[in-house]
């Protein structure tokens, strides 16, 4: 049976893993390659590395880092953050990334999703959507959650699927950093209208939240950062908890 995936997410700035709350108050927590290898050893199913460096120099550092990750890691990993052109994507692919996630670039240039799917295959294309709910409407944001757009979460996710995205990574900005649980209602709706897998992100605070997101939230994968980085929950603990609740996990 296909297992629900547990995905630790590592935000990387200037080669170091960092963690912020609600996209701000960022602090450093460790070396991405070492942390990635440790998570793989613990049983993480996949990893996401997001580059939150703004500078051009930082970009080159990130490609070097992706290569180091690929050399050491024996599980799949997605890279994202600040990717704007096919040449960036080719460099990340050549460095050994399994999947690339687009966020701002996909909204600014939706054709990039089609081009990526065509050139590299849908399985390589993750579209990350940061969205905030206000008055019952989910609005997609770009630039790390700073700028609202015209795009509405559900129709945008559908459009991404139609354009060839292989997976949607949805972060609820209302829930991110709160540790009050995932946006299960919106996630379930996403899962119902899409045929591609959905990764849930934002709001994980305890193990029960993961059980919820895989049942009522219908998510295919659950992503979290701080609770793993600060050892509030370990991956093996979480997986045993889920298995005891009859949720299929890889143990």
């Amino acid at each position, binding site marked *: *049976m*296909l297992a629900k995936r547990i995905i630790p997410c590592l935000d990387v700035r200037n080669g170091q893993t960092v963690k912020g709350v609600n996209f701000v108050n960022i602090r450093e927590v460790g070396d991405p390659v070492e942390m990635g290898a440790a998570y793989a050893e613990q049983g993480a199913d996949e990893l996401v590395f997001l580059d939150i460096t703004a500078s051009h120099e930082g970009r080159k550092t990130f490609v070097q880092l992706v290569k180091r990750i690929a050399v050491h890691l*024996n599980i799949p990993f997605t890279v994202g953050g600040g990717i704007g052109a096919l040449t960036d994507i080719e460099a990340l692919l050549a460095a050994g990334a399994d999947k690339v996630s687009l966020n701002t670039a996909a909204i600014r240039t939706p054709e990039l999703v089609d081009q990526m799917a065509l050139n590299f*295959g849908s399985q390589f294309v993750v579209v990350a959507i940061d969205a905030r709910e206000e008055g019952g409407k989910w609005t997609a944001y770009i630039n790390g959650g700073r700028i609202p757009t015209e795009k509405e979460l559900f129709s945008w996710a559908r459009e991404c699927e139609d354009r060839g995205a*292989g997976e949607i990574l949805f972060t609820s900005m209302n829930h991110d950093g709160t540790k009050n649980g995932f946006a299960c209602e919106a996630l379930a709706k996403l899962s119902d209208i899409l045929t591609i*897998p959905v990764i849930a992100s934002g709001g994980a605070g305890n193990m029960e939240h993961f059980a919820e997101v895989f049942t009522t939230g219908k998510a295919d994968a659950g992503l979290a950062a701080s609770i793993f980085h600060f050892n509030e929950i370990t991956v093996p603990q979480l997986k045993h908890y889920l298995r005891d609740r009859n949720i299929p996990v890889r143990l």
Partner: protein
Amino acid sequence: MNVAIIKYNAGNIMSVDYALQRLGVNPLVTDDHGFIRSADRVIFPGVGEASTTMQYLKNRKLDLLLPELKQPVLGICLGLQLMCRLSEEGNTKCIGIFEEEVRKFDPPANGAERWKVPHMGWNTIYDLKTPLLGEDLSNRYVYFIHSYYAAVGPDTVALCDYTVPFSAALQRDNFYATQFHPEKSGKPGYQILKNFLEL
């Protein structure tokens, strides 16, 4: 040991390269017929689209070279599918080392159970009948990412269940193939690549 990884037009083949390096082997990524013919092991990896990749192989006559190889050959993911007879993806006539046909996962429209396509993530393999996998790996999780699958047939040597049971691995003589990615499958994957080098 000389290991050739067949050079592709697309997809992440670096991860196969790195996985072999972790096993102490330095493979060469190449489409050179001479090197491929004389290599001790040949790996035919790949992710991508069937018809365009098949065309790429034809342009380099790799579709003719592959079936002639005598050393152990390992196809991975799209590699497995292109070693089959034909694929529904782009209605592609493939290399035909294996008899099986490649079909698209077709989730029931209104089924009670929701099936996502691609079949992405970790799933268990069973009914293992090949030295490539041994027996210890029965019911272990390995990593899949694919929208098309090889139907169960005479060359099937391992099964996996998704919308239907499908071929997780195929073997005929010196030709081995896995639908999953051993290079991304943690410890079981490491064992499988090690088994392949020791065949």
